[in-house]
């Protein structure tokens, strides 16, 4: 290597650079070098070598300068390749975030599209999710000047791509310059851009990445049109909001982004951010270059006014050199003085206002900007200019705040001084009002969008929960929590039922039991398994009471940071290893103070204690286990077998076996007190980081940095079974019975694997591949430091994120019971505590809390039973086929006097009524107050409404071919159907209020009024779920299409926001009524359902499946 002495290095560099920059060649260069280097031959040789090198091509060093296009052929797609249903035609270009191709779509329609392929490394999953929830919004952007976003997908290598309408165009500025468009023509073109942006804003969509490259001009010779591309993409790619935006600031596209986008303050980005970008583009269109905004970006946080930071466009133009100015003027078919004159004045003001530093300084809307441009063209006063003197007046007033007794005349004179007439102030107000209106329109559109977004978030959260990604699910739900708590939604209850349900489900799967401010390192449970002790960087040991829920601190051990904790089984003493190398002990029972046992040079990585607490087995990073006598604190023995450092150690409950895992890629099992080796495992592929023994010491589990989790039979040391998890294992544990293994990983993921899993995946590749997804929980943000497996339902883990998390891996929230006999009538009590069912002759009650079923001890009419239901007051109404109705008053569930546990029966008081119209009533429904009841008979094609409690007939209607009917919550309206036709009658007076003749193309299966009586929801064999604003007599709206089966039953939450539909399909679907979107399925049942009901308090969803099993789930926690 060529060593250039330090002092000479810079001399060489200076001469070299000077020579290069002088542009001299040949003899003149040689002369220059002679002059500079004099007689120093070595110096000259050095410089010459560098000069030579600077002209030599070098494949390695020049890679960075090669055009990126086409060079990256290994990464890019070739023509003819397929990407989903699109065939790549050619590479169009490459930008900061990805490459763009022209491609051909064949199916379902033949068309040319542009495909934007995102570079690897972006979080494609998140991006596609965003696409999913923005799709509905983006799909509405149908405008001649907006290129539509058509589709999104994921390439085989995982990279996401977006499919857009293909625009054969030229970037706006290049087009204008090439065509030498006049300023006037540029304004016109710019105006169409503004109208497109305005349209999008009205639909609640911001562009966020407006720049000349995203504004294309198509020109087919006859017509010129501007097209805005990439709408919404910026937001899709804006992964994690703030975070990437800041990276983009380094690598991204200044100067078109607004200062608030640069600062990453998402909350401040609104329509005016797009106004800023348009302003910069306009600046470039007019004076030939974008303004110098460096100061603006740098001072994003300061209060400095923009006018001090940005050069006025006129001045900017003036500052350019002569050739540039004449070229710019020439491109605009004008002369330098004319252009200069044009810019100076109103145009200056317009541009300055558009690119104001803060949103408040800018135009309130794109329309206002466009209006000012047309005002300018029409010779009218511009808004930008009018406001500025007002601003100065305001400033003037502020400056003289002390003398706040300014008279009106003073103000007038100030105004007059600035030459403002009241008339002009009026114009300003009008313009201001209009732009304010637009903004409000945008807010309204956003509100609408909000519901769509909420539905999508809920969908994604449900998906994330089923994927085991709880952090993601929590993030989604939290996001909606925030939105909901903001007043925007104007709800009565805070969260929708669907949201509450997911939150509850999430909590069942895993919950954060404690959040420490610093990272947590270790955990141990006491021998009785009643408490878990945990500690970490804070140097505090905390105790979690497993039976209660409380957490308390132990007295400080004085160790700066706690790295490991362990218990002695017999004495119950707790030992703590600190980062200062000390190991201390305390009796938790006696609450004595900590005593120091011993001290090592470095912090012990892991240790365990003998059964009776006599000896500690310490791994201090060396290859040997140091055996410390607790009494003396001395190392009395070394267990020596490993070749490299030991990272983990574990001891069996009886203390006779100790297992160690080492960097040498093996695990060793020792016998204690003999200290002999019982077994050494085979070599793993990578270093082992942790080990655990079951309580009998018969099975060990170890984990490697390569994600290998091994289950080894200690006796033989042989039959090891391996499951590979996708990331480096940082901690392992095995349940006391040796049946369940947990592994915590560096990614924050915790895996729970059973012995059965190990056996099956050894033989069944397919099983192994699906196993991981089913057994994972994203319990932490970052590295899991320690995990403990009590049972599969209760796995604890601590991580660097400072969280103590309890996860459940075998959570089954669907309760089920076998009913004694076959029937298809069930009902749920309003509080969700009881399910009633009958087998035509006997009534059965199921307690949802316990799943126990009870017979009914009551004097019931001897007859075959038909429909049954609970009234809002909790009485059970039971219809007999002979037209008699029994009203049963059940005992209060709080008072168990009437519940006879020995014979499993419940006593109830019975009153029997005769229905005013005798029929076989299959369906009983109540008004919310319980003062009216609807009885519907399909068999006798009649529906009646009676007043309770005396069964006075209020309404009667013959309903041939009806499958269902519903009574509104006030009891004033009744809905019925005739095949696909719907009717709403007024109960009082019987008037037909509304009818909808072609509501469904097939039989209507169920009807439900919304609680506010505004909507009538219906499901039909045409699979459609519709809602109808029956009072305005409009045509019904489609809520959705039931996936994969015919919807038969409907339920609706109390707030009317969540709709449930079930049918013969294997699950019950939830729908978001605001967004009119499908949410997620609940309560799976392989057989499908006969009927499903939601309890009046929203707490319980019940279903009778086609195997005659009653199933139920809790939708929210009971109060």
């Amino acid at each position, binding site marked *: 290597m060529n060593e250039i002495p330090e002092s000479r290095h810079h001399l060489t560099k200076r001469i070299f650079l000077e020579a290069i920059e002088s542009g001299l060649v040949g003899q003149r260069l040689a002369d220059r070098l002679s002059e500079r280097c004099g007689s120093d031959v070595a110096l000259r040789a050095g410089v010459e070598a*560098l*000069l030579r090198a600077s002209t030599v091509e070098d494949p390695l060093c020049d*890679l*960075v300068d090669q055009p990126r296009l086409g060079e990256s052929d290994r990464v890019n797609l070739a023509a003819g390749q397929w990407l989903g249903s699109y065939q790549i035609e050619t590479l169009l270009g490459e930008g900061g975030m990805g490459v763009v191709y022209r491609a051909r779509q064949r199916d379902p329609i033949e068309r040319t599209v542009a495909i934007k392929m995102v570079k*690897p*490394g*972006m979080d494609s999953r998140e991006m596609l999710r965003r696409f999913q929830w923005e799709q509905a919004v983006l799909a509405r952007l149908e405008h001649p000047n907006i290129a539509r976003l058509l589709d999104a997908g994921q390439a085989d290598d995982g990279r996401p791509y977006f499919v857009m309408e293909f625009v054969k165009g030229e970037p706006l500025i290049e087009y204008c310059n090439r065509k030498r468009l006049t300023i006037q023509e540029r304004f016109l073109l710019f105006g169409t851009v503004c109208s497109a942006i305005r349209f999008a804003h009205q639909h609640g969509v911001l562009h966020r990445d407006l720049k000349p490259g995203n504004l294309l001009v198509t020109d087919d010779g006859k017509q010129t049109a501007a097209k805005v591309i990439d709408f919404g993409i910026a937001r899709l790619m804006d992964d994690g909001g703030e975070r990437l935006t800041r990276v983009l600031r380094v690598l991204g596209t200044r100067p078109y982004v607004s200062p608030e986008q640069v600062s990453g303050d998402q909350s401040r980005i609104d329509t005016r951010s797009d106004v800023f970008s348009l302003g910069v583009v306009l600046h470039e269109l007019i004076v030939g270059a974008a303004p110098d905004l460096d100061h603006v970006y740098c001072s994003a946080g300061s209060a400095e006014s923009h006018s001090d930071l940005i050069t006025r466009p006129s001045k900017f133009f003036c500052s350019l050199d002569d050739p540039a100015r004449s070229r710019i003027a020439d491109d605009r078919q004008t002369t330098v003085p004319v252009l200069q004159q044009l810019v100076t004045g109103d145009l200056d003001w317009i541009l300055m206002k558009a690119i104001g530093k803060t949103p408040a300084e800018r135009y309130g809307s794109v329309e206002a900007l466009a209006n000012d441009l047309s005002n300018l063209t029409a010779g009218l006063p511009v808004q930008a200019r009018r406001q500025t003197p007002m601003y100065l007046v305001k400033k003037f007033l502020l400056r003289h705040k002390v003398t706040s007794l300014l008279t009106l005349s003073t103000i007038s004179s100030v105004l007059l001084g600035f030459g403002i007439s009241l008339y002009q102030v009026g114009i300003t107000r009008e313009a201001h009002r209009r732009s304010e209106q637009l903004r409000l329109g945008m807010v309204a559109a956003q509100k609408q969008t909000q519901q769509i977004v909420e539905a999508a978030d809920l969908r994604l959260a449900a998906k994330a929960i089923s994927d085991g990604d709880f952090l993601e699910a929590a993030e989604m739900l939290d996001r909606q929590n925030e939105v909901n708590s903001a007043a925007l939604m104007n709800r009565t209850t805070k969260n929708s039922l669907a949201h509450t349900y997911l939150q509850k489900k999430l909590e069942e799967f895993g919950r954060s039991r404690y959040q420490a401010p610093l990272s947590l390192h270790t955990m141990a449970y006491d021998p009785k398994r009643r408490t878990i002790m945990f500690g970490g960087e804070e140097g505090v040991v905390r105790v979690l009471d497993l039976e209660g829920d409380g957490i308390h601190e132990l007295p400080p051990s004085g160790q700066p940071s706690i790295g490991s904790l362990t218990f002695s089984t017999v004495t119950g003493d707790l030992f703590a290893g600190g980062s200062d190398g000390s190991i201390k002990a305390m009796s938790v029972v006696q609450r004595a103070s900590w005593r120091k046992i011993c001290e090592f040079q470095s912090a012990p990585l892991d240790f365990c204690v003998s059964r009776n607490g006599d000896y500690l087995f310490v791994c201090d990073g060396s290859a040997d286990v140091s055996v410390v006598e607790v009494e003396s604190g001395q190392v009395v023995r070394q267990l020596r077998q490993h070749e490299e450092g030991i990272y983990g150690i574990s001891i069996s409950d009886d203390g006779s076996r100790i297992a160690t895992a080492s960097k040498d890629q093996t695990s060793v099992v020792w016998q204690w007190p003999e200290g002999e080796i019982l077994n050494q495992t085979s070599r793993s592929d990578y270093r082992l980081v942790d080990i655990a023994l079951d309580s009998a010491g018969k099975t060990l589990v170890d984990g490697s940095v390569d994600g290998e989790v091994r289950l080894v039979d200690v006796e033989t040391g042989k039959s090891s079974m391996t499951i590979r998890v996708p990331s480096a294992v940082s901690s392992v544990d095995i349940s006391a019975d040796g049946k369940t293994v947990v592994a915590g990983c560096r990614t924050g993921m915790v895996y729970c694997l059973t012995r059965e899993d190990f056996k099956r995946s050894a033989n069944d590749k397919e099983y192994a591949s699906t196993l991981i997804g089913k057994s994972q929980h994203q319990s932490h943000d970052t590295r899991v430091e320690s995990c403990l497996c009590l049972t599969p339902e209760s796995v604890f883990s601590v991580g660097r994120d400072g969280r103590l998390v309890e996860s459940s891996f075998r959570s089954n929230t669907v309760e089920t019971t076998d009913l004694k006999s076959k029937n298809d009538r069930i009902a749920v009590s309003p509080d969700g505590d009881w399910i009633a069912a009958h087998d035509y002759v006997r009534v059965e009650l199921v307690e949802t809390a316990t799943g126990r079923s009870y017979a009914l001890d009551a004097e019931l009419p001897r007859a075959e039973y038909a429909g049954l239901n609970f009234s809002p007051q909790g009485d059970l109404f039971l219809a007999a086929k002979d037209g008699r109705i029994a009203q049963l008053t059940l005992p209060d569930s709080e008072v168990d006097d009437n519940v006879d546990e020995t014979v499993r029966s419940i006593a109830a008081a019975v009153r029997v009524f005769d229905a005013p119209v005798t029929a076989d009533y299959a369906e009983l429904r109540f008004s919310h107050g319980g003062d009216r009841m609807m009885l519907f008979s399909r068999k006798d094609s009649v529906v009646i409404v009676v007043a309770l409690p005396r069964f006075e007939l209020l309404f009667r209607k013959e309903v041939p071919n009806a499958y269902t009917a519903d009574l509104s919550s006030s009891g004033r309206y009744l809905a019925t159907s005739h095949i696909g036709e719907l009717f709403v009658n007024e109960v009082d007076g019987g008037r037909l209020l509304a009818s909808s003749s072609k509501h469904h193309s097939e039989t209507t299966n169920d009807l439900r009024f919304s609680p506010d009586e505004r909507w009538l929801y219906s499901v039909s064999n045409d699979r459609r779920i519709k809602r109808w604003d029956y009072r305005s007599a409009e045509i019904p709206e489609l809520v959705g299409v039931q996936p994969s089966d015919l919807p038969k039953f409907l339920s609706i939450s109390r707030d009317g926001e969540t709709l449930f539909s079930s049918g013969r399909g294997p699950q019950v679907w939830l729908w978001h009524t605001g967004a009119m979107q499908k949410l997620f399925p609940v309560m799976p049942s392989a057989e499908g359902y006969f009927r499903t009901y939601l309890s009046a308090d929203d707490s319980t969803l019940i279903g009778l499946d086609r195997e005659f099993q009653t199933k139920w789930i809790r939708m929210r926690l009971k109060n």
Partner: protein
Amino acid sequence: MPGPPPRESTESMLVSVYQELRKLAAHYLGEEGSRETLQATALVHEAYLRLQKCDSRWDNEGHFFVAAATSIRRIIVEYAREKRTQKRGGQVNIVPLHEFAVGRISDHERLIELSDCLEVLAVQDAMAAKVGELRLFCGLTLVECAEVLDSSVATMHREWKFARAYLVANLHES
């Protein structure tokens, strides 16, 4: 009770960036085996997002990119060394470099030398070496370098011109 964690030195920051990138690179190239090449810019982005998520220390991207460039260089050289010694037998086919599929560079010897040259240069001329590293191993443009190193584009231009000449001269001689 310990106070807040002490501010870490540049070297320890480097260590964490290095580990993160190393892990990511291994993840993409290693067991998954799905990718033959890796774009360093993408890698850096991902590492940045990950680190920044759990650590506010990375609020300054400048520091981050400087550390990332050094890390990427180390990773690449490691792979190259590995390839040269063929210890793991063809597990990793491709040396990842910046934007461009450097799979074509079969000359692992030269990659390692390039890295060594940069180290020597760094002793005498930290700025030129930094620019070289950011350019060659992180794929940054001069404008981006200026951003990261908080300097002007003109300066970056000069430093790069020199660094390139220096590297080519020394590479050719060896």
